[in-house]
């Protein structure tokens, strides 16, 4: 796992800050997200990205994936604090597992003006194996998934094409221990 934060972050401001992806299994009940978000804001921790979805309807469980920045000591404290919350079953730092897989999904809408731009976009989309969701005259919508780092690179490359308009949404990283 070598990808960096999805958003530009003043890394130097955080002494020995490390990006960590935390995977939290919780009872899916009202207020659980507020408890977690409140814990982060109340104790001054960072949330770089957040993803919440029910993963087990029968047992009523959700998995929350949180990307955060902090020294190792802070990350251990976050985990300990998360595990104190009543509806939390477990909180795991994926970096502490011997093996884990991480992915993110991104939808990108690009408006272009001419064929030259269209060709360049098509070229990058091909390199990054992004899937075309919709294409009209001067608008194309792609879906790209993979590590956050890969998506960052794709976006950086698109940035080199002048004069196009980009609108996008990202899921934030999700991850699983293997």
């Amino acid at each position: 796992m070598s990808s960096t934060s999805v958003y530009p972050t003043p890394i130097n401001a955080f002494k020995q800050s490390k990006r960590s992806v935390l995977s939290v299994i919780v009872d899916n009940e009202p207020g659980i997200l507020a408890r977690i978000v409140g814990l982060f804001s109340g104790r001054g921790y960072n949330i770089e990205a957040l993803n919440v979805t029910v993963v087990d309807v029968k047992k009523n469980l959700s998995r929350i994936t949180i990307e955060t920045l902090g020294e190792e000591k802070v990350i251990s404290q976050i985990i300990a604090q998360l595990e104190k919350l009543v509806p939390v079953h477990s909180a795991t730092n994926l970096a502490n597992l011997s093996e884990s897989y991480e992915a993110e999904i991104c939808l990108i809408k690009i408006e272009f003006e001419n064929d030259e731009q269209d060709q360049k976009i098509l070229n990058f989309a091909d390199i990054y194996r992004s899937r075309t969701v919709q294409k009209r005259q001067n608008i194309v919508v792609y879906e790209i998934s993979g590590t956050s780092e890969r998506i960052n690179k794709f976006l950086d490359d698109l940035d080199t094409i002048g004069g196009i308009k980009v609108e996008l949404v990202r899921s934030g990283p999700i991850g699983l221990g293997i």
Partner: protein
Amino acid sequence: MANENEFTGADILLKALKDQEVDTIFGYPGGAVLPIYDAIFGQNFLKHVLVRQEAGAVHAAEGYARSSGKVGVLLVTSGPGVTNVVTGLTDALMDSIPIVCISGQVPSHLIGTDAFQECDTTGITRPCTKHNYLVKDVSKLSETIHEAFKIASSGRPGPVLIDIPKDVQFAKSKYISKKDISFREHRIKAGSKKVDKNFVEELVNHIKKSERPIFYVGGGCLNSGHEASQELIKLVNKTNIPITTTLHGLGCFPGEDKSSLGMLGMHGNYEANLAMNKCDLMINVGARFDDRVTGRLDAFSPDSIKFHIDIDQSSINKNVKVNFHTNTDIALTLKEINSFIDSNSIDFGDKDYNNWWGQINEWRKKECLHYEQGDEVIKPQHAISRLYELTKQKDTFVTTEVGQHQMWAAQYYKFSKPNRWITSGGLGTMGFGMPAAVGAQMANPDSLVIDIAGEASFLMNIQEIATAVQYKLPIKIFILNNEYMGMVRQWQELLHGSRYSESYVDALPDFKKLAESFNAVGVRAKNISELDDTINEMISVDRPVIADIWVDKKENCFPMIPSGAAHHEMLLSKYDKENPENQEKGKVLV
């Protein structure tokens, strides 16, 4: 068709409280809890104590819980009723006190409409409770209440709130009793019941090797129960290791025992803080390395191997990195340490730490708690010392407010048993002591309950005198009256050039007349010759008493580690001058 197996939400609440063996509830009625008050009217197992403001209910529940070891329970209405208890809930969270707060909420269909006396109770109390609930379905009520009690009292205890909309109090469902509920383990977080054998062995080995060991004991020992305190006494006697306690640890180990170095920290004893600074082995039993205890972190006990026993995982390595830790209950762990020592016939007889005790006794010669009592004006330290001497033979509970008087009480009143000392440590809530005394007296009707107070703190919840009078609770409010917010003034003197900005309490009431107007008893000591008689009179009256003790207005609380200083940089008296560099650093801290 009425089903006789079904009960209203209000009745289910009462049944659950009975099931939980609750006999006392502190509360204040209002629109959103009227169905519950109606149910209270028709029963006789539960004694309701009507407070005069909801803050009084929550502190009384805390006092009840601390002094009895049971869960304290309170009942308040929606909106302002519940916002008034936010301070107390935070206080209980910081000091790990098990309480359950029941609050009324506007009817379900009005939630979110900005209805009269509506507020987002679960939103407001989420960060200041261990857990909270909004019960929208009456069929979930029994289970929720039982889980709330379990969570409040398990692991590291704390406050739990249950918000019940008015329509749910009227709606009907079956009652499920406590014994028919199976708790889901992950939600209870009770901590491990299995003692870490490795930790025990490492600890005993390190004790054998150490030259300068110390026990550092906190409120966790108190929460682990009386057995923890008994095992601790055994272990200290066996090993001859000096012991210091935090503010909340007072009473876990007898304060007058020769092994006790007294309290440590900002206003702790010189010998306790120096011993913490110089020790080579620190055994932390249920303390959380609070900033009031550690002083400047980078100079905190630099040369020690640190062991930490704490049921709360998040207290480990939070402020101070430790070498060994265990998350098992303290009583169980200490018991295992004692039996490991016994079964392996480990004798610490030759290991008497002579040099270490010699050093500690040198520090003790500083007599850091020495004060000069003249012939006229009462020194506050002397007032507490006399109070201790004149009450120590009695079955006494002491509560306090917050400030100088609280620190003097911690320094000069000695406790020999746990749960006798009830004070607001983490949050430092002025106005805590008197309602807490009401709660402690409810739980211990035959004991002597004294609130050691300052006049400024006392004024913050003065209305609760009426509660004490109504329920004939003979609590004693022992005010060290110096007409100042003493601790604020002390900091202004030390750090802000003696500019006493707004710390003088002008227009004070005549506390004697005030007591009389509430139908309580007022007594007063203006000088040293009146002190003992006043204390004796206060104790002998079987009614609530306000004792107005006029003390030296300029006295400060020493010893003191100024904020930002380290343990070995203590100020011993007003003649000690603070290092100006520390002063600047300390100014920005709390």
